[in-house]
C-alpha cells in the first residue's frame, strides 16, 4: 500500500524566500509529525498533530516556521524568509494511533537555501 509521501523531494530557495513543504500521511493515520534532519545528525522533532489539532509545536525553531493540517490528513510545513541555517532534510512521519508507537516516515524534502 501507499506509504507517506512528501513533495517536493528537493527544493532550492534563495535566502529570504518562503517555502511550503507538503506531507501526505498514510490514510487513516491519526498522528502526524514533522522532523528536521541536518547532515550527519539524527532527526529533530519540530511539531506534532493529532488529527487537525496541533498538540505540540515546541520544536519549531522560530516563528518563521508554521505547520498546519486543516482537515486532519495532508499537512504543510511553511518556512518564511528562509535562512541558510534552514538547509536540512525535512521528514514527515505518521502513526496509526496517538499511543507513541511505530512511526512511518516519508522520503523527506531536502531544502537548500542559497
Amino acid at each position, binding site marked *: 500500500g501507499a506509504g507517506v509521501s512528501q513533495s517536493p523531494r528537493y527544493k532550492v530557495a534563495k535566502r529570504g524566500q518562503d517555502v511550503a513543504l507538503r506531507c501526505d500521511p498514510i490514510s487513516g493515520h491519526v498522528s502526524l509529525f514533522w522532523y528536521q534532519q541536518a547532515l550527519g545528525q539524527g532527526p529533530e522533532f519540530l511539531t506534532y498533530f493529532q488529527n487537525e489539532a496541533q498538540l*505540540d509545536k515546541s520544536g519549531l525553531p522560530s516563528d518563521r516556521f508554521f505547520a498546519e493540517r486543516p482537515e486532519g490528513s495532508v499537512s504543510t510545513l511553511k518556512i518564511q524568509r528562509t535562512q541558510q541555517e534552514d538547509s536540512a532534510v525535512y521528514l514527515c512521519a505518521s502513526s496509526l494511533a496517538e499511543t507513541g508507537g511505530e512511526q512511518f516516515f516519508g522520503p523527506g524534502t531536502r531544502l537548500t537555501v542559497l
Partner: protein
Amino acid sequence: SQQGEEDPQALSIQEGENATMNCSYKTSINNLQWYRQNSGRGLVHLILIRSNEREKHSGRLRVTLDTSKKSSSLLITASRAADTASYFCATRIYGNNRLAFGKGNQVVVIP
C-alpha cells in the same frame, strides 16, 4: 535536543559478522525504538522495546534495554551487505508522542 546517543559512531564489518551498537539516554522513557536509514528506503522502523521489557528479538535483530543504566543495545547477527545503513535509536517519554533521536551509527557491511 538529541536524547539518544549511540556508540560507536561508525562500524565497518565483514559480511556474516555480527554488529553491535549502543545507545544511552537521559530521562525516563515509555519506549525505545531503533530505526534504519539508507538512501534507498529512507528512515524505517526496526523494533520497539517498552520500558518494562528487557530483551526483544525480530529476525536477525536483538535489542536489549537496561533502564537502570538508561541504555540499549542493538545486535544484528549474520550481517549482509544490505544492512549497510545508519542506525538510530529514538526514545519516547511518558505523556509525549514525539521521538528523540540519537546521532546515529553508520554501519558498513563489506561483501
